[in-house]
């Protein structure tokens, strides 16, 4: 259909790709099983969850390997022929999507759909009216036993090039009135399948220990299963409608799990806040998808929407203005779900949920749903958000602001989870930035690596808290833990280094690729317009290292400030940590730049494997032509500079704390008194009294400077302005509601109705006076009326 199907015909679609629906189905089944039978089982339902997610993971791994094999096979088959085809079929227009090309060979999506329901589709013309009744009949059977319609198979018949050129023709033939539900398998979704099932499995295992003894242990696992299922469902969406369903379902699971300990109001407040903030974004989602539905000739198909978005501004494409509106609306959804600045405030609050949930939902998977959606509907976002008349894409700016904003905020947290939460905000900004500058693969790669190291960090934080009696306060209850919990320390360390982008850990590769992708650094190619995103990216790289150093110091170094002796967590906690840390160390090598590979003398095919596997077909071509999508040339100098930035920043913070430790082993920061509150005084005070003025300069300029006024101001802004926006909006609407209810509803409208009743009744009362009981009055009335009427009618008018 969209992507030419020469290479893969119906028979060759792997079993797993046709039946990939099993992956979300398993946890869904497990949800119900746990809900209904969980409490009666020995492990109270956890075993079902682990088993089903484990199975799902197995299937996901199978799918991943099948995918990789397929890609590798097709790459090895990549012959001159296909390039020849490309040159023949190359369209005169700038944007080529329908024909086979390099991308098509590598990552053509395999879409398997069944009809979900039909609605309003039969109205195009009368000739088509008979179709729905037939199809609806089919549909009934389809529900019972999924009759799978492999679109690839359907399309293999019309492989003629001209057919696919004429989009409209191709379209009308395959335009089913029905709305389909299906699975979409390509590199991006397979990658997510792998990440979600893996992290979910690890979190399941971890949770058996972490929430052990909780009164709602069973429910907890049920919702974990439901979340996993919903997330996978969303990941596999082949239509925007399905995407919405999954999107909201993960939201509600997030709500339920944030509010897991709802006995305390702050927790349920946080849950509500998360849900409501996301709902605000969902307005955008609903409207955006609506606009796209109609813009794409009444279709929810992602495939078709993308296809028409690419042709935006041309014949058969979506109107540019509409596309911009749609993309802006969808961006609102992304901003809420993926915690982009200014809708990010729910994310730190969401840390009220159990830590494994934070790891799974609020770090590794759900919060990247927005990023995932951008990737899934990349043409829409790209075409829609490119600022007219420039080469700048608005996404890059949003991402840039978010990444710095989040990073700054991470400095001033006492709560270890909140640091990680802000860090997540910051990293999500990074991903959006990457997608904004056109570095699709880099963005996705960062999503991939981030999932591992951030999950590792969160689970590590959980482990720490588990040891410190469920406190997350770094300053009050932690310190020096490396001695007590070495495994946690080691894995946390790896995660932190990965996050900070220290080579050769995973974060380094992905972050570096993004920075290169911005295309500003000499030698990386690109259009050279993304200075701000690039600078912000560099800044964030430095800040990340700095605040992670702070976290590590406060948690694992110095002296223990808690009350009871901490202890290392059990194996059910540490094994997931180790697995994640291991992955965080190695996955970066999946996308090594080819010069690096060459330098090391490794096989050439080892280079940019991730790109080969994940980057979908078509997009490469189109964005490339649109002068946005960058397969940036790697730059060694950039890598070195970025690393130095990180190391320098981290080192500075480290120095700061070392000095502090030397001064007072118990202290967590300098002069926690009024000076901290009146920043201008601080400099003078320090200058006069503190002989470590230079030390301050080293450690203070970078660390304290950002940590001081700027971060504080940012945090103040966040807490008092942004945060209040939602509170105030909520309060205001309650107020308006009360006002309207009291005065308009109960006063005016109801009053009017009641008044008319009263009026009738009152007039009845005054009429009663006429009925005086005097028969003579009656006679007068009778005769007067007779005379009056006679007089009126006697006049011949």
């Amino acid at each position, binding site marked *: 259909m969209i992507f030419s199907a020469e290479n893969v015909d119906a028979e060759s679609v792997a079993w797993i790709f046709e039946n990939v629906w099993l992956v979300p189905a398993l946890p869904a089944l497990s949800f119900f099983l746990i809900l209904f039978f969980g409490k009666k089982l020995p492990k109270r339902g956890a075993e079902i969850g682990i088993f089903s997610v484990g199975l799902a993971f197995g299937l996901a791994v199978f799918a991943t390997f099948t995918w990789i094999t397929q890609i590798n096979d097709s790459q090895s088959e990549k012959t001159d022929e296909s390039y020849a085809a490309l040159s023949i079929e190359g369209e005169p227009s700038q944007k080529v999507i329908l024909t086979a090309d390099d991308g098509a060979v590598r990552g053509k999506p395999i879409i398997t759909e069944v009809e979900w329901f039909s609605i309003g589709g039969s109205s195009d013309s009368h000739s088509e009216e008979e179709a729905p009744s037939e199809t609806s009949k089919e549909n009934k059977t389809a529900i019972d036993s999924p009759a799978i319609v492999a679109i690839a198979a359907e399309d293999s018949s019309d492989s003629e090039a001209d057919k696919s050129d004429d989009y409209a023709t191709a379209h009308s033939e395959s335009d089913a009135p029905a709305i389909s539900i299906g699975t979409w398998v390509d590199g991006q979704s397979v990658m997510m399948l792998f990440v979600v099932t893996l992290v979910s499995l690890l979190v399941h295992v971890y949770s058996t220990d972490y929430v052990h003894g909780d009164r709602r242990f069973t429910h907890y696992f049920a919702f974990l299963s439901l979340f996993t299922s919903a997330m996978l469902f969303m990941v596999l969406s082949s239509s925007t409608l399905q995407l919405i369903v999954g999107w909201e379902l993960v939201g509600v699971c997030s709500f339920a799990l944030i509010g897991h300990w709802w006995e305390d109001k702050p927790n349920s407040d946080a849950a509500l806040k998360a849900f409501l903030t996301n709902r605000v974004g969902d307005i955008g989602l609903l409207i955006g998808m609506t606009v796209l539905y109609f813009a794409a000739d009444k279709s929810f198909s992602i495939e078709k929407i993308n296809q028409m978005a690419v042709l935006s501004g041309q014949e058969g494409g979506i109107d540019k203005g509409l596309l911009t509106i749609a993309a802006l609306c969808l961006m609102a959804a992304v901003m809420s779900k993926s915690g982009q600045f200014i809708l990010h405030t729910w994310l730190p609050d969401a840390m009220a949920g159990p830590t494994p949930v934070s790891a799974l939902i609020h770090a590794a998977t759900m919060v990247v749903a927005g990023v995932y959606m951008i990737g899934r509907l990349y043409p829409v976002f790209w075409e829609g958000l490119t600022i007219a008349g420039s080469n700048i894409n608005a996404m890059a700016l949003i991402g840039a602001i978010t990444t710095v904003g989040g990073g700054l905020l991470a400095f001033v947290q006492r709560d270890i989870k909140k640091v990680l939460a802000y860090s997540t905000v910051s990293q999500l900004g990074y991903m959006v930035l990457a997608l904004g500058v056109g570095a699709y693969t880099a963005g996705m790669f960062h999503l991939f690596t981030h999932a591992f190291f951030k999950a590792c960090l969160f689970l590590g934080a959980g482990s720490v808290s588990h040891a410190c009696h469920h406190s997350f306060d770094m300053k009050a209850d932690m310190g020096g833990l490396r001695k007590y919990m070495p495994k946690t320390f080691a894995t946390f360390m790896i995660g932190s280094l990965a996050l900070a982008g220290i080579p050769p850990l995973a974060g380094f590769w992905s972050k570096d690729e993004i920075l290169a992708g911005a295309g500003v650094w000499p030698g990386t190619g690109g259009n050279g317009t993304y200075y701000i995103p690039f600078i912000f990216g560099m800044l964030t790289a430095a800040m990340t290292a700095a605040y992670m150093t702070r976290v590590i110091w406060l948690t694992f170094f110095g002296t223990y400030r808690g009350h009871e002796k901490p202890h290392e967590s059990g194996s059910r906690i540490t094994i997931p940590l180790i697995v994640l840390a291991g992955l965080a160390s190695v996955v970066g090598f999946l996308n090594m730049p080819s010069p690096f590979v060459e330098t090391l003398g490794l096989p050439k095919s080892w280079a940019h494997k991730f790109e080969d596997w994940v980057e979908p077909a078509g997009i490469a071509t189109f964005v490339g032509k649109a002068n946005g999508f960058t397969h940036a040339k790697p730059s060694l100098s950039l890598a070195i500079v970025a690393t130095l930035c990180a190391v320098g920043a981290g080192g500075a913070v480290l120095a700061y704390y070392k000095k502090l430790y030397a001064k007072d082993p118990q202290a967590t920061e300098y002069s926690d008194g009024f000076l901290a509150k009146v920043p201008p005084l601080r400099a003078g005070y320090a200058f006069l009294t503190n002989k470590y003025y230079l030390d301050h300069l080293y450690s203070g300029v970078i660390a304290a400077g950002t940590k001081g006024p700027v971060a504080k101001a940012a945090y103040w802004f966040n807490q008092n302005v942004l945060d209040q926006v939602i509170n105030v909006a909520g309060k205001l609407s309650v107020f308006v509601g009360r006002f309207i209810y009291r005065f308009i509803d109960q006063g005016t409208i109801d009053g009017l109705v009641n008044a008319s009743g009263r009026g009738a009744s009152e007039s009845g009362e005054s009429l009663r006076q006429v009925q005086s009981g005097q028969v003579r009055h009656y006679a007068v009335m*009778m005769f007067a*009326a007779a005379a009056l009427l006679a007089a009126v009618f006697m006049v011949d008018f």
Partner: protein
Amino acid sequence: MIDASLALVAESEFVRPAIDWHAAAPELILLAWGALVTVIDLIWLERSRRFMPSLAGLGFLAALVPVVTLWASDDSVRTMFDGAYVVDKYSLVLKALFLVTGYIIVLISTNYMADGDYYDSEYYQLIAASVLGMLVMTSARDLISIFVAIELVSIPAYLMAAWRKRDLKSNEAGLKYMLMGVFASGILLYGMSLLYGVTGETKLTGIAEQLNSDGRPLLSLAVIFTVIGFGFKVSAVPFHTWAPDTYEGAPTPLTAFLAVASKAAGFVALLSVVLVALPKQSDVVEPLLWILAAVTMTVGNLLAMRQTNIVRMLAYSGVAQAGYMLAPLAVYSIGELNSVAIGGSVASSIVSYLLIYAATNLGAFAVVIAVARKTRSGEIVSYGGLFKYAPGLTVLMTIFLISFAGVPPVGAWLGKLQLFLTVLESQTVAGVVLAVIMAINSVLAAYYYFFIAKQMWFMPVANQDSAPVVIPAPLKLALLLTVALTLAGGLGAFTGIANL
């Protein structure tokens, strides 16, 4: 001039008119029965009291027999006295209505009269006489016979209204009814005399032939006075003032009789005169009746909302219902008018409504009488909690109230629907406006009908007295009959026979 009239007498040779005895049978039977009852009463005096009600009731049923046979006979229209007396479907339906009403009135009066230590025999004789007047009214197509019939209906009713002769209220009721009635008769007669003067005819068909639109002022006066005379009988606002007072003061069974039969008789006369005699006068009659209808239903409802006595409330509700029934006459020019047999949708809808309305109203009064046997009160608040101690009566009353309110599927909704249909059939602005006024009034009316329902169902028992209500057999029979007729009417049982 006197010579001339004498000459007229001399010239005309008296020819005995042919009398269709079958057609006259209902009236004759009732007349004979009334006389028989009087004679029996004179002979047996006190001893006849026990069976007098049953005997009187039988008379009504006996008179119903020829009505049925006439209905069944092929001869659909029988004319006597040169068209002054017509027996057609229209009159037969109404005769049946009056006879059945008479019978039910006897049923609900039986214990009321017996317990109240009033004269009974005379009471039943008077009822028979009044019903006789109604029977005549249905067939009368001549100003003279209409006048006689109307007086035959009214004069016994004046007496019966004052039947509780030691009761000041009853006296007052009788007085007011009588004075207003006679005064209205005077106005009516004045109008009739003018009508006669304009046309030289007393037969309705003759009047119709003679009338044209010339001489409008006098004619208008004639028409208006005539119509107003009937307006009194149907208690149209502002000629309704006697109704609530009389209803409240008179014995309740008589109230029922007035509210149903007497009012129906008024409508019969009005229909006959308007449809037969004044088919071409719609330019005067229609607006006149439009105003009367609109004012009547609105004022009736507004006043009913404020009543605390249930009988008074029913009186005002009756006023409002009369307004609905007047409405089709406000557009009566729609139909093809038949000068001999009255038909068409105007008459059909009004008759249809009269039938169901009669059943419902009688039923409601029967319930009022039954409840009053226990509570000795006509105040609406005394109905509080009726559901708790007399669920059967409550359900019946609720059915009647639903019927009054015109809510499907029981009772008068269908009649009301037909009225609506007829009014809208005109397809004029006036018609639509009137229909909307009717619609709004229906809602207003529901308010007070359901106020009673509210008392019965939702309120606590009044006076904490929840002893059950004992209902004597005749009253039970009356209730059963009326509720059956009301339910059947709602499902369309009467529409066939009322389709004229």
